[in-house]
Every structure is written in C-alpha cells, then in structure tokens.
C-alpha cells in the first residue's frame, strides 16, 4: 500500500512540474492576499474542492495508513478479515520504530539501497547523455528529420509492459534474438537475465531504451528555445563547436535539464515495471530495487508482511523527499530560481 502511496506522491509532484502548471507562479502571493483571493475567487475554490477532497482521500489516506502500518507488526495472518462465515478480528500490535530499526541495521535494506542507487545514477546518466546527443543531432537540419524524430519517440508510444515483454523475449538465453545474432557471429550466447552481472546490465539497458525519448524530446524543446543569435555571435568570434556546446547549449538548457534530471531520478528510483517484469528482481535478489522488494514483502512472500513493506515504502518516500530538497538547495545556491 505504501508502495503505491509513495509512487503516487512522486508522480503527482512530477506531473505538476512536467506540465509546467506552476510556471510563472514563482512568487506565491503573500498570506495577506489569501483572504482577498478567497473572497474574489470563491466560486473557483468551490469548483476545485471536490478534486482536493478526492486527492486527499486517494493520496492522504493511504499515506497515513501506510505510516501507521509501518509502526505495527501487521501481516496477512493478523489483520482483520471477514469472509463469508469466517470473521477474524485484527490482532496486530503497535511496535513503535522497531521496523525502522530492523530495516536500517540489517543488510537487506542497505544492500538493496546500494544497488538502487547504482541503478538510478547509471540509468539517469546514460539516458541524459544519449538524449542530449540525439537532441543535438536532431536539432540540425538533416534529411528525414521528422522521420527520425518519430522513430526515436516510438519507445515512448508503446505501453511499457509491452516493450518490457518484448525485451524479455529478445534476452531469452536459448531462443532470444540477441543470442541468435551472437551465435550467428560465432560468439557464445550470453546469459542475459540469468547471470547476476549481465542481468544488471540488461535491466539498465531496457530502462535507458525506455527513457531516452523523454529526455530527447524535453532537451530538443530546450534547444529550440535557445536564440540562434547566440550561436551566430559565437561563430563570428571564432568559437569552436565544442566551445559553442559548452558555453551556449549547456547553460541554455539548464532550466530544462535540471527539471528532467530530477524527474528522471524520481521515476527511475521507483521504476517498478522494468525490474518486475524483466527479472522479478532475480536472479536471486541481484536486480531487486527498493520498490520491487517492498512489493515482494507485501504480495509475494507468505504470510504477507504488510508492516515491513510499509516501512520500506515510507523510507523510499523519505529518501526521495531528501533528494528533492537537497537538489533544490544546490540549484538555488547556484542561482537558479524555482
């Protein structure tokens, strides 16, 4: 449950930024104006109220419930159930912060967190680099530019689970296309999903493939908003291509790239479908990230451990909040305003 919660919070927050709804409202009205805003826009507030209530119920309730469960020893066998003639009351108990102490002192959480960080950093870095390269290429006037753009956006247009399953077929050790190509070239097949190290490479590759279109489109939009006069002036001054890229393109893209890196980090950190559908966290626990492990506690092991799962969910939420706060602060000290 908490898994869901943290995701929806992250997504909701992400959506806000992505759609740029808050753009232009950089300076929130001072509190004194609230009253006036209320009296002039009361009709708007009324119309918004149902949405606020629904969001409160959809996000607020599960969040509070998740936090509560993380402070108990609730599992499948001691929660209240009422099925037909069988009625069982809840018998779980409040255990305080025990779950958090267990999670933070045990190897499992920290080990999983380690791989989750490697996964997030490498996915975001590779996706960003590739997206940047492709965006720069497609920003030039080349023949068939729109066709290329369409083709590169394609991974985005296919539902995630479909492409993940397609990759799973490609990766199949005996019958997959990748190994057939390798053996055709005289190489030994690779145990893409069965070898712990290769499995890690494989899941990162799929996530990069899925994430590049978003990066590319966002950065392409950013590139097109950089005035061409800057480049012309730089060329007049004799700047090399690298200098132009380093001193015009990169700073010009800054508002876009900071946002997409933040979003991409949050999404990748919680990228459930790629890991779950590709390897289910395996082989063993090699590719298990925090969210898939939290899901495993809550839905795959028996008796289902709701308390531990909620604990992990809350910890994920806290980690992401911390990351967002630090990231924002770093940007602000560098003079960015958002």
């Amino acid at each position, binding site marked *: 449950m908490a898994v869901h919660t943290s995701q929806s919070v992250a997504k909701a927050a992400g959506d806000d930024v992505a759609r740029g709804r808050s753009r232009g409202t950089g300076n929130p009205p001072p509190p004194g104006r609230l009253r006036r805003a209320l009296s002039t826009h009361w009709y708007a507030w009324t119309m918004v109220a149902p949405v606020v209530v629904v969001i409160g119920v959809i996000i607020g309730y599960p969040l509070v419930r998740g936090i509560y469960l993380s402070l108990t020893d609730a599992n499948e066998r001691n929660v209240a*159930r009422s*099925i037909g003639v069988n009625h069982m009351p809840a018998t779980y108990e409040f255990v305080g912060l025990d779950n958090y102490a267990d999670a933070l002192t045990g190897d499992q959480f920290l080990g999983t967190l380690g791989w989750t960080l490697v996964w997030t950093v490498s996915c975001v870095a590779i996706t960003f680099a590739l997206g940047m390269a492709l965006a720069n290429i497609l920003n030039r006037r080349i023949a068939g530019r729109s066709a290329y753009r369409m083709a590169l956006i394609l991974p985005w247009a296919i539902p995630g689970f479909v492409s993940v399953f397609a990759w799973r077929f490609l990766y199949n050790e*005996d019958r997959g296309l990748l190994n057939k190509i390798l053996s055709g070239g005289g190489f030994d097949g690779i145990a893409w999903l069965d*070898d*712990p190290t290769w499995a890690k490479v494989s899941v990162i590759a799929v996530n990069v493939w899925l994430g590049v279109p978003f990066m590319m489109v966002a950065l392409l939009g950013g590139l097109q908003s950089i005035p061409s006069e800057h480049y012309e002036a730089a060329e007049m001054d004799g700047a090399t291509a690298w200098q132009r890229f380093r001193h015009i393109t990169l700073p010009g893209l800054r508002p876009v790239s900071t946002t997409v890196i933040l979003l991409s980090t949050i999404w990748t950190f919680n990228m459930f479908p790629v890991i779950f559908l590709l390897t289910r966290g395996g*082989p063993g*626990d090699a590719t298990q990230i925090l969210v898939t492990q939290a899901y495993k506690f809550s*839905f795959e092991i*028996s008796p289902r451990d709701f308390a531990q799962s909620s604990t992990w969910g809350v910890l994920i939420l806290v980690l992401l909040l911390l990351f967002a706060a630090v990231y924002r602060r770093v940007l602000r000290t560098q003079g960015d305003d958002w």
Partner: protein
Amino acid sequence: MRRGITATALVAALALAATACGSDDDSSNSTSKGSGELSGTVTWWDTSTAGSEDKVFKKIAEGFEKEHPKVDVKYVNVPFGDAQNKFKNAAQSGSGAPDVIRSEVAWTPEFADLGYLAPLDGTAALVKQDDFLKQAAASTKYNGKTYAVPQVIDSMGIFYNKKMFKEAGVEVPKSIDELKTVSKKIKEKTGKTGFYLRGDDAYWFLSFLYGEGGDMVNATDKSVTIDDEAGVKAMKVVKDLVDSGAAKTDATDGWENMQSSFKDGDVAMMINGPWAVADTYAGKEFKDKANLGVAPVPAGSAAQGAPQGGHNLAVYAGSKNLDASYAFVDYMTSVKTQAQVTKELNLLPTRTSAYAEEAVVDNEIVGFFKPVVESAVERPWIPETGSLFAPLVTEYTKVLTGQTSPEKAVKTTGDSYRKLLKGWK
C-alpha cells in the same frame, strides 16, 4: 443570482462526489434458494497447464451445466505461478474471488488458516470421504475440519527422450553419478545437453534434497532441517550438475524453457510430473508418444525420493453461491470425472475406486506414477508449508548462478524459516 450560483456549485460538487463513489455491486450472482434446484454462477479458477490441460478441464467443467441447466459455470484459467497470490488478493478484498479454486496441496492449509475457505464437512462437496487416498486427503484437513476435496495427486519422475538415449547408447540413470555420466555421453554423441534443471522453482530442488537424506523442516520435533549437512550437500549436487555442464538451467522463464527444450529435443532429460505429460506430448519429438520415457528420479548419496504433490478443489468462504459450488466440487472429483481426466490427460485420480476404472487401469503414465506417489515424500501440512519455497528459491537460484555458497545459502534459508516458524529449533 448569487444564491443560484452557490446552489449550482453545490449540486455539481455533490454530483461529482456521487459518481466518484459509484458502487459496482454485482448482484447477478445470487442464488434462488428453496426451490431445490441449483442455479446461479459458479466461477472456477483452474491452474492447469494452459494450451494443453486447460481445454479438457474447461470442457469437463462446463459439463456440469448439463446436469444442472440453471447453473452457469465460468471457467477461468489462472497461470499456476500467479494463482496463489491472485487468490489471496481477491479473497482478502472480497471482490473478484472465484467460488471454487484449484488449490495446490501446500496452499490449502494456508488458505484455510487465513479463513478464506469454507469448511466442507457435511456438505454436498464431500461425498464418500473414505474413498479418497489417505495421502491425498491429508492436505485437505486443517484443525480438525476438511477444507478441500482432492482432485489429482502427483509426484515427480525423470522424463527422458528414448530416441536420444538410443542414439547415445545410454540407460536411464539411477543415481546422480549415473546422471552425470549419461549426460556426458549424450553430449559426446549428440552434442545436446543431457539434463534440464529447473533453476527458478525450488520444488524442482526437493528430489535432490531428499536424495541426500535432507528435508526442509521436520514437523514432528519442530525443527528446521534445511541447514543440516544434507541441505549443503544437496546444494553442492545441483551446483555441480550445472557447473560440470551435465545440466543447463535458467533463472527466469524456467517452465517455458524447460518444456520447449525437452519438446524440441535440445535436452534429453528433465525432472517433471504428470502435469507436464499432456504438454510434452504436444512437442515435435513426442508425436510418437512412445518416445517419452518416465523413470524414478535419480537417487542421491543417501536416499531416493520425490515430493508428493497434487491439487485440491476448495470453496471460497465468501462465495455467494455455496450450494452450487459444493455440487460442482463433488462433480469435479467424482469417479466418472476422474476417469475421464486420466484418459485425456494422464493425471492420477485421488479416489481409490477410480483406480478400478478401465481408463485408469490401462494408462501407462498412471501405471508408472502410482507406485512413485505411494513412496513419495509427504510434506507436513501446516499453514507455513506453502511459505517455505519463497526463501528457498531465492537462495537456490543464487547458488546456481554463483552468487552465494551452498553453506551460506542454506543458512540464510534456515534463518528465514525460523523467523517464519516461531519457536522452532
């Protein structure tokens, strides 16, 4: 005017709230009681192998409508691997749960313990209870009540490709050592791998564990035994099979890979049970059914044994149509139905009297598996039995993929067993 707007806003808000909370109660499930005739819908979640067994079970299940024309049987095939979790989700939330579930033997005490199953003693579901094989009936009882009716019983054997064996000039291996030499010979003569070891499901590890004289737990003296010396040895045995090239394995898609490699003649042997027979016969290597040989699993250094498994039919406690569900369970486990299932799918009946039926007597697969089942290793039917595989499979796969040592693997598994079984040694 102002008031008008307020009213409109209120109404709009209310309307929104009302639609958001729209209920999707399905009242078409109710039964008309009293008339004595069964009616309504019975939804059955079957977990048999899709593509081969499911067609037969669907046909048989829908045959129930002929006996009870007012009952509508809804057949749903749920992949075996997902069924336990899917049923738990549905049963706990109370929405979307089936009336009847094909519950694997180890799941049954767990579902019963969680309160998801209806007790069947004294209902129409349990007819001639003494007729059921004792081994099959054992898993249906929990805390003195009966919660399910045995549908099929099974164990495991070694499936081999007779043609490939002849080509390589080898005999069926009776021990792990023989398995390795046979595998090596097959590799030399045919270039194919000898044995497929399923690496993503710990059920396939059990016969190796039993072969070394080990077991997961000992319920009589309440102790965890997976981390005994035998457990370590068994892990070493499977690792050696893979490392020496005698066997190949996969950490994902094990079932599909195993079946397709065996069916296409890419491997000569696999360990499997009666549930795989129908699917195997559909493969190109086994168009001539006589090419499939079945033999007891190879013995380890201490013993020889395979797990006893099977499936029960259980009724969901929250079913809105209990009476028809009881009758459906009885129909599905009757001698007549069991004989038909054996005839078409080579599965083993659970009723003693069914073994006298002609279709069963003549069946070769049943003839082979009957004695195997009788000597198979029975697991303790406690609610936790179904929970023992999750920790084991993670470590088993880790051993096979070289991520941990056999010693560490069984120790980690043992630790999680002790956490699960409070107070056990």
